[in-house]
């Protein structure tokens, strides 16, 4: 692995190797040493968890970071091409973590620089480190990745975390339920991929009747600004709010995941149930990103 750009590039064995390595890091079985390594964290779009967890992951392994948030502090503002900016930064750092609204920017970055690139989110396209930490959370809570029933709820059209997760899980014989307002449904190109791979799925507009079947409920935010018609938003917004009542009848092992930030789509009352897992999920971002950074910097380390 030279870069991490898209879940599309990862085969099942590579996914398992990253997750296994993350588990060994978390348990203290391995301690990769990144002393003297410098990661440039370029976040052209706002991010809290992803940015901080990369920063934390680097520093936990003795590495250092250069951080840049927004484009205003870079020469991109002066009209410099992304290619030139990246090439320059690659002269200083050992690895680039890139978040951008431009789709395909991380793939492009990996072609113009000679150091490893990690995609930390490119527009509505991919967010592979999030997908990997989601898989890590699933395996930690379910003990396996294979053959699970997973509902993705909310905005599935623009939610790149949902896109990456669907692709990542497709390797593990899942059964999918996609629950969203009609105009925020999963993009047709992803559904086509699933049909080609023979992965069963159902598209629904509500969770009614399926909760007892689920192992994982992955909730994303339905954003008001995605609706052309405000009345439509008011009408549907509560269909996608998870409350303890919605979770009645669920298997005791059902876990609710959410990439965060949440607004009101998972009520705080759910936090007190055994189904809530979203804060641990966010914490899982650190060992998973440590594993990815250490693999790409070629220092898998031993105890």
């Amino acid at each position, binding site marked *: 692995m030279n870069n991490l750009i898209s879940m599309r590039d990862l085969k099942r064995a590579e996914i398992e190797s990253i997750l296994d390595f993350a588990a060994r890091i978390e348990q203290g079985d391995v301690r990769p040493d990144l002393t003297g390594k410098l990661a440039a964290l370029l976040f052209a779009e706002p991010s809290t968890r992803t940015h901080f967890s990369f920063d934390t992951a680097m520093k936990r392994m003795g590495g250092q970071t250069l951080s840049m948030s927004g484009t205003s502090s870079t020469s991109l503002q002066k009209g410099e091409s*992304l*290619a030139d900016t990246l090439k320059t930064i690659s002269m200083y750092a050992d690895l680039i973590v890139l978040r951008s*609204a431009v*789709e*395909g920017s991380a793939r492009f970055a990996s072609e113009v620089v000679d150091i490893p690139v990690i995609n930390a989110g*490119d*527009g509505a*396209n991919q967010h592979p480190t999030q997908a990997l930490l989601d898989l890590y959370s699933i395996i930690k809570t379910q003990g396996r990745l294979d053959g699970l029933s997973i509902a993705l709820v909310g905005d599935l059209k623009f939610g790149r975390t949902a896109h990456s997760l669907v692709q990542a899980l497709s390797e593990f014989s899942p059964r999918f339920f996609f629950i969203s307002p009609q105009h925020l449904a999963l993009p047709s*190109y992803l559904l086509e991929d699933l049909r080609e791979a023979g992965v069963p799925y159902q598209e629904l507009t509500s969770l009614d009747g399926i909760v007892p079947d689920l192992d994982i409920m992955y909730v994303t935010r339905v954003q008001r600004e995605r609706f052309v018609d405000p009345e439509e938003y008011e009408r549907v917004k509560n269909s996608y709010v998870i409350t303890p009542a919605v979770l009645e009848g669920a298997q005791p092992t059902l876990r609710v995941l959410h990439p965060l930030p949440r607004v009101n789509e998972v009520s705080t009352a759910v936090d007190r149930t055994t189904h809530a897992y979203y804060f641990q999920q966010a914490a899982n971002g650190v060992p998973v990103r440590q594993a990815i950074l250490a693999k790409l910097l070629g220092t898998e380390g031993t105890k």
Partner: protein
Amino acid sequence: MKQLKVDAIRNGTVIDHIPAGKAWQVAEILKIHGSQMLVGMNLGSRKHGRKDLIKIEDHELSSDEANSIALIAPMASISIIRDYEIAEKIPVAIPEAIAGLILCPNPACVTNLEHIKTHFVTSPQHGDGRIRVRCSYCEKRYLVDDVRIST
């Protein structure tokens, strides 16, 4: 059926069975300068209803050129003509990857914002026989009919 009269060529290439209305696009992709071309549009065809046809004088299409038009004319039949006779038929094959020929319709794609040669991967044909291409950068998939040819 009444046939439109198009002069035979002595040496060159005949591209037949182009989907009706696509002849200009084929000519644009081939970018053949200096050769005389005859373009027939909406001709009657026994096999496909209506079709377009192009005759190019004194230019023999290479197989790379033939494959470059495969995306929009996958059923085209290409004949090399020497001394008024068909000397050779060139098969048209849809390439697995297409570099630079088409533009990504996604306005948020990096290929529309930076100076990058586009790159697409073709998908196996579905039951509907329509060709789909996936942008290697933004990863969106499109029907060939929905992409623009870069000229």
